[in-house]
């Protein structure tokens, strides 16, 4: 039977309560040096996060633009009455308006007013051309501008539906030219999609660079603390305990860098947003970020911290497995 003998340190006589719970924060911190923001790691992460926030914001704005444009244009049909004679143009326009209103699936029809038309052509013809086009009393001087009818279908303007509209209109307005509004912007949609892919690729590359930075930081820390790790191992420390110390340390660095990067990225996004808002262009305005987009941007540093910690953990565990 074990019993306490005189001369023993009291701790050996009474023993020490033990548990198998995870190391508490205080104990874990004491195992290895925990330099904070000592190396380039937080700054590298700050730059990565700032760039990722900007790239993500650009991708989200482009998505919003594409969605808004698609929603607005998918059921839109433009009918141009291309007729030089103003009276005939007016006659065919009225007939076309009536015929379109009777086509099933057409939810609204309106003739684009003359002043709106004037504003549309002003950038190309200038104020004089605009005036000339508007001058109904001098048909010889006027530049014949087609009449425009804006029709909305209840669903997307598919080829069969356009064919139906076309057939209906040609009977009453032979000068009518019918176009789905979405088809005009198809190249723009293609370009937007390309830019979105570009933004996504950039985000993936930045995530890869962030993981590589975390990997290098973890390896450096492992190399610097090799002796301590060996001692902790020989005292019964588990790989998971040691890995947790490194992942925590890198997590703190990543969190600091991430916060800094988020602030810088958001500042850049806000400045760019204001610049674009100043353009007052419809398509650009549609790309404004919503609250869910801002939330996604706020999650970027969190994802960065998670990725850095996971990378550190996996690389440390891998390195520790090579030790006995």
């Amino acid at each position, binding site marked *: 039977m074990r019993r306490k*003998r005189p001369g*023993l*340190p*009291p701790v050996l006589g009474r023993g020490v309560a033990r548990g198998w719970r995870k*190391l508490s924060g205080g104990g874990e911190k004491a195992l290895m040096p925990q330099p904070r923001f000592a190396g380039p790691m937080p700054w590298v992460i700050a730059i990565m996060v700032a760039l990722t926030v900007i790239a993500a914001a650009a991708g989200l704005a482009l998505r919003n633009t594409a969605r808004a444009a698609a929603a607005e244009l998918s059921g839109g049909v433009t009918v141009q009455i291309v007729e030089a004679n103003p009276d005939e143009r007016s006659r065919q326009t009225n007939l076309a308006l009536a015929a379109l209103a009777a086509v099933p699936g057409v939810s609204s029809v309106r003739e684009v007013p003359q002043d709106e038309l004037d504003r549309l052509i002003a950038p190309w013809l200038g104020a004089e051309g605009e005036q000339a086009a508007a001058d109904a009393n001098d048909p010889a001087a006027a530049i014949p501008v087609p009449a425009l009818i804006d029709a909305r279908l209840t669903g997307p303007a598919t080829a069969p539906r356009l064919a139906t509209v076309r057939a209906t209109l040609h009977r009453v307005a032979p000068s009518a030219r019918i176009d789905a509004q979405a088809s005009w912007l198809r190249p723009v949609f293609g370009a937007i999609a390309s830019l979105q892919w570009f933004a996504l690729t950039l985000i993936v590359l930045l995530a890869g660079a962030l993981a590589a930075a975390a990997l290098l930081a973890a390896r450096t820390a492992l190399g610097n603390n090799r002796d301590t790790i060996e001692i902790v191992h020989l005292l*019964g420390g588990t*790989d998971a305990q040691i890995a947790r110390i490194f992942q925590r340390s890198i997590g703190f660095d990543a969190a600091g860098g991430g916060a800094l990067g988020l602030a810088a990225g958001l500042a850049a996004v806000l400045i760019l947003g204001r610049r674009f808002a100043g353009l007052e262009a419809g398509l650009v305005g549609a790309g404004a970020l919503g609250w869910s987009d801002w939330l996604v941007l706020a999650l970027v540093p969190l994802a960065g911290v998670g990725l850095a910690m996971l990378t550190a953990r996996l690389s440390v565990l891998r390195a520790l497995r090579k030790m006995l």
Partner: protein
Amino acid sequence: MTAAEGEIVQFDNVGLRYGTDREVLSDLSFTLFPGSFYFLTGASGAGKTSLLKLLYLAQRPSRGMIRMFGTDAITLRRERLPGFRRRFGVVFQDFRLVPHLSVFDNVALPLRVAGVAERELERPVADMLDWVGLADRLQSRPATLSGGEQQRVAIARAVIGRPEMLVADEPTGNVDPEMALKLLRLFEALNRLGTTVVVATHDVHLLRKVPDCLIMRLDKGRLSDPTGALRYPPRPQVAAR
């Protein structure tokens, strides 16, 4: 009780070589029993430290079989190693104190690794350091301590968790005779509590101070066991102490 049932450590034809060099340890076959006190002696370069490394699982042998606590230690899964290592206390020849930690934190290290709560650390560590005469150096860094003081910290760290087996490599090499005797008494006290103690030493005077000890002598990597007492030990009274 048979040897196989009672052994804490069993070596069978164990050999160790580093890389492609010749074996530094050859044909080691012996059994250590719970509660026994062993001195490991031998000239410098005889392989004492290498044998201790095998004992505290810092090294795997190149050949042979090692059983510890009734388990094959050669094929032991990596996940189980920490649990085994927590059953040992090790005093390293070069102390291996963690330089950035205070004396207190160095001694607390095995307890922290084992998951002892912070509030339960303070008293045992302070008591332990008081006992080895370093109560006033709790917050000192190892670099500010003398060799003897570092050695005492290393010993305090090794024994604070009350290990089942204590392995000490030249534990009295840097302390004065009075402290050496005190530390030896500590090892004996631990041994009386049931801890198996293996002390590697050059100091033959130390051997005489522990009358019931068993002596393992290494000579050029081979264990001198003329009577076969290490390989085929008599029914161990030590284990029943």
